[in-house]
């Protein structure tokens, strides 16, 4: 079984994976058993990284780099802070020395994948022993490689031993949104359930719900979900990015949102793509001109 499904860690674990990072940080871990303290701490640190508090994390783990879990956290924090070279170096070291540590697998796998070392990431992650986070990461890597067949296989294998896990449900939805058809609807149900539950509702789940609805062609519903979420989390980049997509689909102006996105995350894939394609367009368009200029 997934080591995190231990009773004490379940809640903090679920909170992390449903994107409630502040809740994770505020989580009272005093009651946890001593062996659960470290995983809980790693989750808290990762939440801080997710919220952009990388400096705090780096400071917190600086003296404890002997613990592989914390070292892996450091690698992730470095990656998030933009110190990619250092992160890569650390991640590769850890992958070599502590390949069996769950945190190392997941966190260093993330770092490797983020820097484009797909194969190394997969190799590291393949050593996992029933680590659901590793499974979900593998699924994501496959999806990013456009290998939805492998991703599906991975999910189905994992479902045999961890059907109930939030992570597996999510990973299945990722695959579902790639496969499409009826799977859109199943993915929608997963996200809707998360988004409507008081303990799991977060931008992450609402975006998922809205994305599923966009794919299902239910634009008004998606719009309702995104607008409600934007009011609550006005600076969540994925919310904004998907709202742009939705507005364009619905034939509504999206310029305001684009400029907001430009401010919050200028490097977002959507903007980068638009820029690239815009330039390509101009090049292509320049090849044509009317015979007679008017």
């Amino acid at each position, binding site marked *: 079984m997934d080591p995190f499904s231990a009773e004490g860690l379940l*809640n903090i674990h679920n909170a992390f994976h449903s*994107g409630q990072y502040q809740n994770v940080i505020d989580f009272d871990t005093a009651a946890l058993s001593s062996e659960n303290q470290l995983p809980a701490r790693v989750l808290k640190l*990762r939440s801080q*990284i997710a919220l952009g508090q990388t400096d705090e994390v780096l400071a917190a783990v600086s003296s404890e780099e002997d613990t592989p879990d914390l070292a892996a956290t450091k690698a*992730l924090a470095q*990656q998030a802070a933009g110190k990619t070279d250092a992160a890569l170096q650390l991640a590769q070291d850890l992958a070599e020395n502590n390949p069996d540590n769950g945190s190392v697998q997941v966190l260093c796998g*993330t770092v490797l994948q*983020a820097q484009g070392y797909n194969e190394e990431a997969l190799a590291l992650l393949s050593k996992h022993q029933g680590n659901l986070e590793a499974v*979900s990461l593998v699924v*994501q890597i496959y*999806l990013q490689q*456009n290998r939805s*067949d492998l991703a599906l296989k991975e999910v189905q294998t994992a479902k045999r031993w961890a059907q*109930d896990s939030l992570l597996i449900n999510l990973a299945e939805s*990722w695959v579902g*949104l*790639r496969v*499409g*058809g*009826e799977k859109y*609807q*199943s993915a929608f*149900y997963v996200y809707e*359930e998360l988004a*409507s*539950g*008081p*303990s799991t509702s977060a931008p*992450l789940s609402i*975006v*998922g719900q809205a*994305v599923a609805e966009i*794919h*299902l062609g239910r634009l008004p519903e998606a719009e309702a979900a995104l607008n409600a979420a934007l009011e609550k989390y006005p600076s969540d980049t*994925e919310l904004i*990015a*998907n709202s742009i*997509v939705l507005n*364009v*689909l*619905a*034939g509504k102006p*999206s310029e305001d949102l684009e400029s907001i996105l430009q401010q919050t995350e200028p490097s977002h*894939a*959507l903007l980068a*793509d*638009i820029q690239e*394609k*815009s330039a*390509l*367009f*101009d090049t*292509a*368009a320049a090849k*044509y*001109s*009317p*015979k*007679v200029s*008017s």
Partner: protein
Amino acid sequence: MQSSPNMLTKVRPSICPRTPITPSGPRHISWDRSIAAANVSFFAQFESKSSRAKGIAFHPKRPWILVSLHSSTIQLWDYRMGTLIDRFEEHDGPVRGIDFHPTQPLFVSGGDDYKIKVWNYQTRRCLFTLNGHLDYVRTVFFHPELPWILSASDDQTIRIWNWQNRSLICTMTGHNHYVMCAQFHPTEDLIASASLDQSVRIWDISGLRKKHSAPTSVSFEDQMARANPNQADMFGNTDAIVKFVLEGHDRGVNWVSFHPTLPLIVSAGDDRLIKLWRMSDTKAWEVDTCRGHFQNASACLFHPHQDLILSVGEDKTIRVWDLNKRTSVQSFKRDLDRFWVIAAHPEMNLFAAGHDTGVMVFKLERERPASAVYQNQLFYITKEKHVKSYDFAKNVESPPMLSLRKLGSPWVPPRTVSYNPAERAILVTSPADSGTYELIHLPRDATGAVEPTDVKRGQATSAVFVARNRFAVYNPSNQQVDIKDLSNSTTKTIKPPAGTTDIYFGGTGCLLFITPTHVVLYDIQQKKQLAEVVVSGVKYVVWSNDGLYCALLSKHNVTIVTKTLEQVSTLHETIRIKSATWDDSGVLIYSTLNHVKYSLLNGDNGIIRTLDQTVYLVRVKGRNVYCLDRNAQPRTLEIDPTEYRFKLALVKRNYDEMLQIIKTSSLVGQSIISYLQKKGYPEIALQFVQDPQTRFDLALECGNLEVAIEMARELDRPNFWSRLGAEALAHGNHQTVEMTYQKQRNFDKLSFLYLSTGDQEKLARMAKIAEHRGDFTSRFQNAIYRGDVEDRIQMFKEVDMYPLAYMTAKAHGLIEEAESILEACGLTEDQIVLPTLESPLTVPHPIVPTFKSNWPVKAAGHSSFEKALLGEVGAADDDAGADGFEVEEDDEEAVLAKDTLDDDEEDASGWDMGDDVNVEEEVDFVNVENTEAGAGSSERLTSGLLLNRQVGAVQFAPLKNRFLEVFKASKTYLPATVGLPPLVNYVRRTTDETDSRKVLPIIPRDLETIASVDLQEGYAAMRGNKLEEGVTIFKRILHSLLVNTVSSEAEVEQAKKIISTAREYILAMSIELERRSIGTDSPDGLKRSLELSAYFTIPKLEVAHRQLALMAAMKLAFANKNYNSALGFASRMLANGGSAKLLEQARKIKAQCERNPQDQIDVDFDPFAEFDICAASHTPIFSGSPCVTDPFTGAKYHEQYKGSVDRISDVTEIGAPASGLRLFVPSQY
């Protein structure tokens, strides 16, 4: 059976006791006591406490039951309300027989005083008594149609009485012991009787009916027969003959009943047996015996609708038997009371049993059909135990989807159903076998009542879905809630609070535990209790559509709580609450036994309509309430939601909606007025009131003086004037005060009012009036107010108060006057002792002429509601006054101009370039092997090439937005693992397709959107005279269509039509824009202007829009004295028809122009020639002259423009060789 030790003390002769009959095994009483009690008491409707009940009768229509008691009383109960309506006490001693007349307000009773009494329950009197029996009367029954009463007596006779002429018409002898029961057959001329002589007899009374059926003429014999009804007629006693004697009971028989439709008879005897008999025309025989009672069986009957037998006995049990198998189905035991009698309601599923301490009315089964609602669908289980669905929107019932015949026991309907849309599964519970549940997947299509396959089942009393792949079941025997996955294996176990009776869905991931006193909200995942609320006896939980509120229904209370169990409101009903459902606006609609009612969140409630039968609400939408009736049939009830919508609008202060409601519905009546007044909205209530007095009261309450004055005038009574005056005074509205004082002839107050407002003139008039009236006090008062010393002195003199007059004169230094007074009195100054004089009173003069107008009053109390009323009037005015391009909206606008299809459009079939990549397929698309990085750009280049070939596109810059738009809409960003970029998925327009080779990308602004949104925007711009905007919109339409796709040839045609429509509008608008840009000062400018205005009328616009162009052209021509042209435009306008206002103008101008049809300025416009307009130069291209067209839009140009960019689309090259736009590739679909 023991008789009472009353005046007629009698002990029933004991039949020698035989060996006791062994109860036939525990099987028949095996029914688990606790469950039995739980179940039957669950269905118990009513219980009375009294002495021993010997006879029972249901009223056929009303919720009434008559109970005859051993104590000589007859009680009339309303079992629904649980109230005793009446008592009838004239019998002496126990009353055993009782029956309601099926139609008349009568009932009959028979007692141990040998008497049969017929009563009228309306007048509450005994009408008459039928005497004749010589011993206890055991049962009495009315005949279903004839005016007969049948009685059975211990005198061993059965008698038939005519209650209309109050005579005995037949006496049946034959039993040789007490006759314990005698009943008419419901349809045939038969009587069944049961006697302690151990026999049941069937009597044929067709002879009697024949004799008494209305004869055409009354013969002597008949008269004789009627005159002596007690005697046998002259042919012997053939009125009633014994048809069959049924022997089989080996003790006395206490009761016998006919089956309502089948030739069956059931009897109950002291041998503790229930026997079933069958009869044919010629014989009757015993069919079977139901063994189970372990004491004397007192009564029995057939279930009116189902194949069941019910019996009661002195063993304190009610037993239910299967008619076909003769096995026990159910039994119920009372602790102390022996049962004596049982009765069935003739129509409803209701039974009553009389016992030693009263009566219990009960239902044999739940009548609430199990149902679940999901979005537009209702899933429910019919009486046949078929699962069906019902579509609210389409109002269609599906054929049966599943048969649940095997669920639970055959006589027990399922209790609840819970639906899981994600898995399309249902969870059904049945109370049978101490509670079972089944998890069943619904078939994709409803094909008929098939037996489900792959059923998961288990033991539980409640089962609900709590998540997509989880459900919770509750088992009270071990007090445990199990959370199970869809393979029915337990994943979690929860210990609910002690005493939990039921569980309900509590919002995602949560459960509601219902205990007798509390409702507890529990988070399954966190395994902790989130909230609890003290509400007792909750039976049902109904969530609002948005999941924010939930209604907890108990027998007599509705409690509304939030999703976190904070109590919002609660209400109490005296009548049982049956069901509830939420309106989309957050109003709870609930039903009681006989009403549909509503409750707002704040607890305001009221009746919406009455019900003639009990229903279970499942949904409300607009004016329709959807419900299931007791036969599990979906029904739709029409309701008038006005009242609660109005109240809701009031609570939400949504004045616009209130206004709407007031205007569109007939919302009047005392209740709404008093409601509004009570809630502190007198100004709104005012809008509803006609009655002047109420209007006056309300107007005063909300300070609306104008209305109050109006009403006071109408009423014109002093009381109203004085109240109005007081209110006006408080407002400082002294003019109104003045008027009310005048109306009341309140002179003193008027004077004072004038004084205080400084109105000297009117004060003087008041003085005059006082003088006129001879009211000296008033006159004096006015004189003081005015400071008029002379008048005061004059007045004193007139009333002979010379000392005062003198004093006044003296004090004011009027020496002469003083002396003349002295003179008149014949006194001198020395003779008078004067007090010290102080300085005389001077009246202050008003500084501000307040009287001229009212004091500044706070702006009249127009509530926002009234403002809305006023505002709306204003808006309407604005509308009427608007001018410019003002045309009535034309409904046909949505329809594209059919005649504008341009032949120049090249047919798509001309395409044979061998390229099967469609133009719009340029969007890079997900494909497993597809590395998308470069794909976009290369395909985009392709697309440029394609567009160049198809439509001669050369200038792509204007298309950039469109291309980016398509690109932006092509994929979504799904955040996955934190720290990694989001997962990118491509949006498809084929949402059901999963084969990656067949999926197609989505294109925003598809044809439908363009036709229904963009095109209409363009038209609106035209109407609104926003031409620049219009040109932009229509160009955008062209660009959107250029990069687009459609799914059928028909749509290709539609797209072509839209392209040509857009072309015509862009052309027309450009012409008009050019005209506006040039001045008319120079002769050339004027000429060009006139020409352009004429060309503006040429493009093929919608008729309504062409009228605008014609109108403009006509006016311009007319103003410049080009009467001939103006005449032409006017005639065209008249030919087009349309708005009357425009036509009127056209007619006028036409009339004027006809007088002098000459053009002052020669323009290049021949209304009779055929020509197109060059889209670049805006000059005519007469037919026959050389021209070039644009390959995409089909716009015409003079030849010199060949090779330049199309002015209409800004994209394509005029005259370029092209294959035609290809939007649709059939082979792809």
